[in-house]
């Protein structure tokens, strides 16, 4: 359907919806979408691991590794009422299905989505990741591109008892692009979903995670670092639903905003009536490097159990002049001192990323972001 406009097809969520109060998709709805252009080979990161590559919304078999636990895209119904996930379900044409059997440690894989747009186009990838009992997998999930385009991926995750999925995302899209990613994770007893997103690119982006803890000792560890500048808008929205007793969850979001950038964090902890001994933690800190940057934080706790530990905190501040002077008085140039303090500010969010390649990649992306400032 070349030349189609979203607003002619579906109703995008507007600010009138509480879940979309701080993120306005209006700039997206006025775009005129063309057919995705022919794929050109992207520059892949130098990571020595199996990879699955998507170019302009299409699986690039020639650039991808053959994995015995990977199957091609299978269209699936959307069981949520999330508007962008529903849209994805209707329009998705590609994606990958990962199925790690019981007890298998599948190591680390790269999931790479590249877009190169001459005219605006949209890509709705749909992935499904299923880990069997005690299975393990680490996914390094990178999105990059050039030009104006819209990445609207959905990732459905199901973790059987004792499974462990580490999901490290680097959203490094073109600064003219849009990225709206929806991740839904069903986490069984004793399983762990560990998530980190670095939001660096895109003109407008939103990462929306819905993690549901279904059995005892299921765990959701969600963290993010948003580094935004110019007129970028970045939204990290996470909902953790505790539907079983004795589950821990963490949401840790650090935002560094300069120029006219706007950051959003909406974090919700839902504790079901039966979810006693829930240990929920949520923290959002923002560092404003410019007087024109803005951060909107909406923490929500919905607690229906009576024996739980849930805490949340939010701070918004600037770089500490005392710390800056201390570093400079030791001979460290101002730029380097600022970079050091910003990296230190992000530490709590980055700390859980233990996989060496992911850590190195994310550190490098953060450093590059800073040197471009």
């Amino acid at each position, binding site marked *: 359907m070349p030349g189609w406009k979203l607003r002619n097809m579906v109703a995008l969520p507007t600010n009138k919806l509480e879940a979309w109060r701080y993120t306005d998709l209006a700039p997206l709805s006025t775009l005129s979408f063309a057919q995705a252009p022919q794929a050109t080979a992207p520059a892949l990161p130098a990571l020595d691991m199996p990879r699955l590559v998507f170019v302009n919304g299409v699986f690039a078999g020639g650039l991808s590794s053959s994995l015995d636990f990977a199957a091609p895209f299978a269209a699936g119904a959307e069981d949520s009422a999330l508007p962008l996930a529903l849209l994805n379900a209707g329009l998705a044409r590609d994606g990958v299905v990962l199925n790690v059997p019981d007890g298998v440690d599948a190591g680390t894989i790269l999931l790479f989505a590249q877009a190169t747009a001459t005219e605006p186009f949209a890509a709705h990838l749909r992935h499904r990741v299923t880990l069997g009992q005690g299975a393990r997998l680490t996914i390094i999930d990178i999105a990059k591109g050039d030009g104006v385009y819209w990445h609207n991926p959905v990732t459905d995750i199901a973790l059987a008892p004792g499974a462990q999925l580490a999901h490290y995302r680097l959203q490094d899209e073109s600064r003219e692009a849009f990225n709206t990613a929806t991740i839904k994770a069903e986490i069984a007893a004793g399983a762990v979903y560990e998530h980190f997103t670095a939001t660096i690119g895109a003109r407008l982006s939103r990462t929306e995670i819905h993690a549901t803890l279904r059995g005892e000792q299921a765990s959701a560890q969600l963290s993010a670092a948003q580094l935004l500048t110019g007129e970028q808008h970045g939204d990290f929205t996470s909902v953790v639903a505790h539907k079983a007793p004795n589950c821990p969850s963490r949401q840790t979001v650090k935002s560094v905003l300069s120029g006219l950038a706007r950051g959003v964090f909406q974090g919700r902890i839902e504790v079901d009536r039966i979810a006693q001994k829930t240990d929920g933690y949520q923290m959002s800190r923002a560092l404003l490097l410019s007087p024109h940057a803005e951060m909107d934080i909406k923490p929500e706790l919905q607690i229906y159990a009576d024996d739980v530990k849930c805490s949340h905190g939010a701070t918004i501040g600037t770089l500490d002049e*005392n710390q800056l*002077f*201390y570093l*400079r*008085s*030791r001979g*460290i140039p101002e730029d*380097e001192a600022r970079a050091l303090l910003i990296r*230190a500010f992000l530490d709590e969010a980055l700390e859980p990323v233990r996989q060496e390649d992911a850590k190195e990649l994310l550190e490098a992306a953060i450093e590059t972001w800073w040197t471009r400032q």
Partner: protein
Amino acid sequence: MLEIKNLHARIGEKEILKGVNLTVPDGEIHAIMGPNGAGKSTLSYVLSGRDGYEVTQGEVFYNGQNILELEPEDRAAAGIFLAFQYPVELPGVGNANFLRTALNAVRRKRGEAELDAVAFLKLARAAIKNLSMKEDFLKRNVNVGFSGGEKKRNEMLQMALLQPGLAILDETDSGLDIDALKIVAEGVNALRSPTFAALVITHYQRLLDHIVPDVVHVLSGGRIVRTGPAALALELEERGYAGLEAA
């Protein structure tokens, strides 16, 4: 050599230093004593280049260079080191990373080769041993969770590594027990040489039992009101600062 000539400085509208004159020749240690509010900390911040302190008159020369136009990092590279009264905590910044970044920044500006991780660790471990510090100091975040004494030792460690030509100790003795005081004194005394000078700012005489100054100055009301030998500190300890303004 440090030469301060008719230095006037203010914070906002408030004039704090009202014509300070002071010369510290190489190889000497001078003490600056004075009552609270005399301008002691202001002097140390003006010398190290902190924002918010406006010099309205006067000059400061260090080794013949007027330093008032230099950024704090350039003053550090030139050899000026300020030991803070309240060392700043840096959560998320490892001490080893901090020390190495500082040392290499200074070495770069001084035209010396940067140290790799191995060479740095060797140097840092030796300095730590000299200061009777535990090696886990390097692994901790800068000053986070340090006791008062540990923070001051960490200042001395930085000083030992950066090898300044002029050390300014801003009430480094405040809140220290006698053992920590001795460590600080040893840190300074270890650097004594014909090419090292120090300005020891203190409210109390007790630090000067361990770092014996060549000259003692009394700062009061934003001016140096008396200058004398080490014995002047003892006299002040006995008689207090009262009446000095008139002297």
